[in-house]
Structures are given as structure tokens and as C-alpha cells.
């Protein structure tokens, strides 16, 4: 009965074929390690964010008068509202944690090298959408930090010479960050960006299955295949990868639940304390800190304190900030090395990658603390180290 139904569908839609191609029989390279878990966990977090987001949407009110109160209403009056909100706030931090691990894996094993350039760029695009999604979502609770983060980030647009100020008013829809701005960010956060994110993630997975997964050895497994064209150094996705992934998902969910139940604020890093105060456009908080996942780039933004020629320090900071993110997209073309994996790269490559990781953490810290002259110099030095990885790493190939 079931077989007949399946045959009927298969004659009209490639169901079995698609299922085998993308899931059950997809050849996963052997030798994949810890770093290869981030991808599947990202899909899990995407689902958590979509489901918890839809439920939050049922009680959230996107007006400047009621946004803050509606969050409190969700936390106190809606049955289990608190847990749904904590899922969403924790999920956003997990999203970034995992995507940074996922990107680092790509750098570690050269997963962006030919023929995976487009796969890398698509992944970068999901990161960009995620950054926008994180920023717009951060504004919605309409607390002090929401408001002032929006104020600071929007002002970046005003740094563009000549038409920046007009563009800023156009994007804000007002002369200041107001309820009008809130509602348009809301529309982006719940409709436009999730649609884009799902679409790009889907294309990312299709692209992955076209070129195949990389592995820590950097070996092209498609070179040696059996008589059916299946790579010898691979295992079918089901059951081998599915079981491994389920185990990882289990561990991940235990950690995730632990945070939600016992540590939802994350000591002020997952939910910033200043955001428990309603937005007040006349009073800047003592110290504005973006969410932890933006702080490395935020530190670079404010590291630039000197003008060059006619360009103001503000505009240059904006340029460096943009360049630090854009340069990630062109990594496949910056890397001229014939070697994929870090395991077989030279000492200079390893040092450069180590420098990148250290600068990411140091800048992440500097972005969280108030500036002073010493920290500004440190931020400038580590911004340079960040860019050195991208620009000079591959000149040292041995």
C-alpha cells in the first residue's frame, strides 16, 4: 500500500530521489571531527528560533508605548512565556557562537577553496542576514540598550559623506529613533529577514551537496570511487552521520536547557541588564555595549580615532568596520595556497590563524569595556592583526 503510494508520488515528484540524494545516501567524508558539528546544530537553532519567534509574535506589541510592557507581559503573565523568550534570547547567542565556530572550521580546513567558493559566499550571506536579524531583534524589547544601540548603529549611515544624513532620515523614517523606526525593524525581523535566511540556508545546503563536504585532511574524496560512483572514503549519511549528529544535538540541547533554566541572563552577556530599563531617548546609558557577538567589529569601529585627509575618523571607522566583514566573503580568492587543511600548512599560516583568533577575542573584550587611550591603541594593533591574516597569510606559503 505504502509502496504503491510512494510510486504514485515518485512518478509525479522526485521524492525518493531527493531524499536519497540529500539525506539517506549523501556521502559524508570519513574523518570529520568536532568542528563539523556546528553546521547541523545551526539548523537546529534555526528551527528553535523560528518556532519560539512565532510564539513570541503572538504576544509582542510593536509600538514604542507598549513594546517594553509586552515583553514584561510575556515574561510574567503568559503561561510559559518566560521559557519561550529565554529560548529565543539564548538561541540568538547560540546562533552566533555556532556560526563563528562554523566559519572558523572553514578557515581551519580550507573549506572555501575550489570548488567550494560559492558555498563559502552563501554561508557568508547567511552570516550577514544573521547580523541584521540579531540587530533588529535586539531593538524590539525597546529597553535602554535597544534604543541606544539602534541610535549608534543607525548613525553609522550618517557617516557616509554627502547624502548620509538624508539617507539616515529616510531609513529611520523620523528625525530620531522612534516608534516608526521600531515598527519597520519589526517588519524586517519577523518577515523579510527570516524569509531571506531560510532561502539562503536552503541554497547553501544544495550547494554543499553539489560539491560535497570537505574533511580535516583536505582530501578530495570524489577522486576514488567504487563502481557505483560512491567515494570510497565516505559513509552514507544514514545511519552514520544521523546517529553522530543526534548525539551532538542531545549534548547541545542539554547545555541549551541548562542556560535557559539556570543562567538565562548569562551574567549580562546574553541579556544585558541595562535593557531592563525602558527606552529613554533623553538619557544615554553610562556605557553602551553591543551584544557580545558584535563586540569585535564594534571595537574596530571605534579604534579609528584619526582622520586621513578629507575623510573623517567616523567615516574611516565605518569603512574599517565594513571591510572587516566584507573581507571574509572574498577569502576564497585571497587564498592562493594549494594546501587546504591547516594540518599541512606552514608555521606562518598557523601563526596568522592564531593571530586572527587572539585578535577576535581581544577585540571582543575591548568592544565590551569603555575606551581609554591604552585600549584604543590595543584595538588599533589587533585590528591590524585581524587584517594581516586575510591580506598576508598566503604570501608565506611554504
Amino acid at each position, binding site marked *: 500500500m505504502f509502496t504503491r503510494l510512494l510510486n504514485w508520488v515518485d512518478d509525479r515528484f522526485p521524492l525518493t530521489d531527493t531524499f536519497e540524494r540529500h539525506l539517506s545516501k549523501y556521502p559524508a567524508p570519513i574523518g570529520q571531527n568536532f568542528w563539523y558539528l556546528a553546521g547541523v546544530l545551526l539548523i537546529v537553532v534555526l528551527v528553535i528560533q523560528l518556532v519560539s519567534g512565532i510564539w513570541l509574535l503572538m504576544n509582542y506589541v510593536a509600538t514604542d508605548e507598549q513594546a517594553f510592557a509586552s515583553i514584561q507581559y510575556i515574561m510574567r503573565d503568559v503561561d510559559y512565556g518566560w521559557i519561550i523568550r529565554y529560548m529565543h534570547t539564548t538561541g540568538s547567542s547560540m546562533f552566533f557562537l555556532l556560526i563563528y565556530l562554523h566559519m572558523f572550521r572553514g578557515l581551519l580546513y580550507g573549506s572555501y577553496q575550489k570548488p567550494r567558493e560559492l558555498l563559502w559566499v552563501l554561508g557568508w550571506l547567511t552570516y550577514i542576514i544573521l547580523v541584521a536579524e540579531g540587530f533588529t531583534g535586539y531593538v524590539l524589547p525597546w529597553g535602554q540598550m535597544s534604543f541606544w544601540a539602534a541610535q549608534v548603529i543607525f548613525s553609522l549611515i550618517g557617516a557616509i559623506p554627502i547624502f548620509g544624513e538624508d539617507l539616515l532620515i529616510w531609513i529611520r523614517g523620523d528625525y530620531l529613533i522612534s516608534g516608526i523606526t521600531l515598527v519597520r525593524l519589526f517588519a524586517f525581523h519577523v518577515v523579510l529577514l527570516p524569509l531571506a535566511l531560510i532561502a539562503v540556508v536552503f541554497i547553501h545546503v544544495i550547494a554543499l551537496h553539489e560539491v560535497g563536504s570537505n574533511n580535516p585532511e583536505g582530501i578530495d574524496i570524489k577522486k576514488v570511487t567504487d563502481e557505483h560512483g560512491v567515494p570510497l572514503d565516505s559513509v552514507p549519511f544514514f545511519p552514520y552521520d544521523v546517529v553522530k549528529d543526534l548525539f551532538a544535538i542531545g549534548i547541545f540541547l542539554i547545555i541549551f536547557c541548562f542556560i535557559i533554566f539556570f543562567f538565562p541572563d548569562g551574567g549580562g552577556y546574553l541579556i544585558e541588564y541595562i535593557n531592563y530599563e525602558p527606552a529613554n531617548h533623553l538619557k544615554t546609558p*553610562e556605557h553602551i555595549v553591543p551584544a557580545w557577538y558584535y563586540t569585535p567589529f564594534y571595537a574596530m569601529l*571605534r579604534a579609528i580615532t584619526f582622520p586621513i585627509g578629507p575623510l573623517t575618523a567616523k567615516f574611516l571607522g565605518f569603512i574599517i568596520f565594513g571591510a572587516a566583514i566584507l573581507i571574509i566573503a572574498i577569502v576564497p580568492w585571497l587564498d592562493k595556497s594549494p594546501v587546504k587543511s591547516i594540518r599541512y600548512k606552514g608555521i606562518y599560516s598557523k601563526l596568522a590563524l592564531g593571530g586572527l583568533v587572539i585578535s577576535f577575542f581581544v577585540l571582543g573584550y575591548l568592544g565590551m569595556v569603555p575606551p581609554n587611550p591604552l585600549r584604543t591603541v590595543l584595538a588599533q594593533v589587533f585590528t591590524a592583526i585581524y587584517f594581516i591574516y586575510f591580506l598576508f597569510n598566503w604570501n608565506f606559503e611554504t
Partner: protein
Amino acid sequence: MQPKTPSNPGRRKFLIAATSIVGTGAVIGAAIPFVAAFNPSEQAKAAGAPSKADISKLRAGEMMLVEWRGIPIYIVRHTKESLEALSKNLSRLSDPDSEEEQQPDYAKNPYRSRKEEIVVLEAVCTHLSCAPKFYPELGTTDFDADWQGGFFCPCHGSKFDLAGRVYSGVPAPTNLPVPPHYYETEDVLVIGEDEEVT
């Protein structure tokens, strides 16, 4: 089935070009409402009316806060010492003579104000729009060894003197803007207009 070579290539080319142009025009036309809907609404524009402040209770050395167009406006009454301090740090300022168009013409003077003892400033840091904090103390502070009173932005460390002039070597590029303002009476300050509209 499309023929390999059109019987009249010139005509085909013209039709493709004409269709493309009309199609592009339609896309531009259709984009207009979507782009325009992002502009400030009439309601938002109307909220930009001038606001009034009674400064009779503002004592020397104090600052008061009023709102205009949703922007915080700082009004400071100088003390004798703070007026003198305005000329002490000139070499550390990047635009001491207010050359940049950040104030109405009547405020292009050493006090950047209509009346020398009253300063009126938009409290919007010219770096990334935080509200700088008021630090009237003279002498050493956490962020400056030779502070002559003024404003310090907690976001990215920009410094301004009490007339809103920016220090050099900080992220903010220009002086704090002075909003249009005039005195309706001795004690009533109107912010948002240069003079009485008759």
C-alpha cells in the same frame, strides 16, 4: 519552436529594446511608493515644532535638559570660572573658531551662543549620536588630566568643551551642533527657530 534567425532582426532588436525600456520604467514607477513610504510621515514632520524653556531657575554652573524634535537639548549657564576656562584649552580643540557649519551665524563666536553666559547645544555626539555627559568640574578627571569643563561621551570617549567644541584626537569629527534659538523674553528661550515668526 523559435526560428534560429528571426526573419527581421532589426525589428526584433527594436521590440526587445522597447519592451526592456518600458519594463524598466514600470519597475521604477512601482518602486516609488515603496521607497517613499520610508520617508518621515506627515505626523513625524509635524512633531518637529519648536519648544520653549524657562531658564529663570537655571543657576550658574548648572545644566538643564529640554527636548526638541525628540533630541535632548542641553542648556548651561556659565560661571565666571567656566567662561574663562573656554579659552584655556584652545590648542587642544580641532575647530576652536567654529569654522564648520554646526551653528547658526549668530552663534559663530567664542561662546557659540546668543548670550555669552548661556550655552544651548544639541546633546547628540557628532560621532555616533550618543548623548555626551556634563562634566563641569575643572582639573583632573578620569578621562582627562587637564579638564576645563565640558562634555564627555561615554560611548566612545569623545570630548567637548563647555561651548560644545570638540577636542582633537577623539572619534567625533565636529563640534556639537547649536540648534536655532532665540530669547522670547529675558527668561524664556525658544529652541527650533532663529527668531520670532510674525
